[in-house]
């Protein structure tokens, strides 16, 4: 077994009393002494600091790089304004999802990407094999910190006021206490917040500065998962994978309108035949959210059944939502059973738990759209 990698904040996590677990090849904090529930609620109500340095950060440069990337990503990248970013999926030849990512246009010839830790090597290999002649800069010397929560903007007003002028999914180069950063107004908790790319060598100093504010608590992977679940956001490798089309995964919103049939830049991306067909013809199964009756958490892998007891699907993410103070889940069901308020059954330890197809997000998103 290869040794787990450490982020630049490893020592700080240990010092803060984190429980460290292996995650995507890294040793990462799953929780701190505050505990998952406390961390979750703190982030919604105050400010949470997340170490997401395990994620892959890279820059791709070259003339006409947007149109080259558009062959791999079903988004109108040319239409992004400088320093504007978007959530997107990296599609496969067969119309599945290789990864989900954030792609930010720095300028007409430069894009900055943040990809999942577990996928980064495959993603980079995939991008490089399709984007011959473009310059790749893998930012292994950059850490990534997320600052999320109701009071994140008020905090950033003191540290990097320029960032508070950003609206959701926009970024800028800035600095905090003399440390150069690239900061975007984004995150994966459903809250307003920021993601900050900073040099590895300055990451701990920045994290300690952020934690010196009493409203800031370090948040581990456990609460990160329950926060994103309540926000109705997908987790790659669980809620979608190489078999899932973005339409099945209910991610049609991530596909620019003009990349769909009839648009001025329709198709022309990997897997577009299947994906555009899925939009036109509909899909046989779809990802939906579920509210769960009672208190029993319904977790990944639980079977979903109809009233007659036929298995119709499976839970792909589930757990307990501290903010809604109830269990919640997401999973795949036949399109005919995907309507909101459809009553189904999840089976946990051979007991039938009533579940209801629910609108997501489960908590209101509080993104700052200006």
């Amino acid at each position, binding site marked *: 077994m290869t040794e787990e990698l450490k982020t630049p904040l490893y020592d700080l996590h240990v010092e803060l009393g984190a429980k460290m677990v292996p995650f995507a090849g890294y040793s990462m904090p799953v929780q701190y002494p505050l505990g998952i*529930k406390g961390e979750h609620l703190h982030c919604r109500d105050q400010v949470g600091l997340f170490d997401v340095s395990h994620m892959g950060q890279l820059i791709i440069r070259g003339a006409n790089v947007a149109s080259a990337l558009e062959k791999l990503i079903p988004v109108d990248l040319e239409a992004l304004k400088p320093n504007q970013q978007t959530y997107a999926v990296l599609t496969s030849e067969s119309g599945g999802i290789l990864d989900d990512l954030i792609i930010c246009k720095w300028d007409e010839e430069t894009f900055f990407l943040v990809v999942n830790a577990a996928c980064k090597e495959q993603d980079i290999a995939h991008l490089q094999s399709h984007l011959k002649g473009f310059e790749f800069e893998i930012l292994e010397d950059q850490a990534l910190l997320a600052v999320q929560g109701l009071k994140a903007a008020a905090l950033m007003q003191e540290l990097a006021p320029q960032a508070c002028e950003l609206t959701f999914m926009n970024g800028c180069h800035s600095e905090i206490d003399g440390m150069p950063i690239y900061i975007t107004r984004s995150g994966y908790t459903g809250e307003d917040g920021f993601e900050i790319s900073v040099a590895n060598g300055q990451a701990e100093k920045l994290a300690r500065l952020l934690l010196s504010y009493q409203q800031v608590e370090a948040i581990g992977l456990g609460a990160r998962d*329950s926060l994103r679940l309540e926000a109705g956001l997908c987790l790659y490798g669980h809620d979608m994978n190489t078999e899932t089309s973005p339409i099945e995964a209910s991610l049609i919103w991530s596909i620019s309108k003009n990349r769909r049939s009839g648009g001025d830049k329709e198709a022309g991306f990997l897997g577009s035949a299947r994906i555009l067909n899925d939009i036109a013809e509909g899909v046989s199964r779809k990802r939906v959210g579920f509210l769960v009756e009672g*208190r*029993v*958490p319904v977790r990944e892998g639980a079977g979903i059944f109809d009233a007659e007891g036929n298995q119709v699907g499976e839970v792909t993410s589930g757990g*307990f939502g501290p903010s809604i103070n109830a269990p919640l889940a997401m999973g795949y069901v036949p399109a005919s059973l995907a309507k909101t308020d459809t009553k189904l059954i999840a089976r946990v330890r051979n007991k039938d738990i009533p579940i209801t197809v629910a609108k997501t997000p489960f908590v209101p998103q509080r993104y700052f759209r200006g």
Partner: protein
Amino acid sequence: MVNMMSEMKFTKDHEWLLINGSQATVGITEFAQEQLGDVVFVELPEVGSEYDQGDEVAVIESVKAAGEIVAPLAGTVVDVNEELADNPELVNESPLQDGWFVKIQLKDGADLSELMTEEQYKEFTAD
């Protein structure tokens, strides 16, 4: 709390027993609740159910994962902590007292020799 622990016996499954005559109150240890994290649901057995040593008696769901309480000794459940239905967090807040799970009427001739004392359990968890 220290005095109470000195009267308790402990298992390798991180459960405690407080034995009073032929009955034992069963719960999980401070170490176990810390490992589990915030408990959000407890599934308790019916009073009157019989269990062999090692059988699953109750299920604990935390924000992180599901865990189980196994019967530390064979016996019949004579009481369950109904409080846990509404306040599962008692398992975190007071694992050795208010967060108890079940009371078991032990079978005659129960073998207590495998159970650990407080000191032995502390050594066990120190590893």
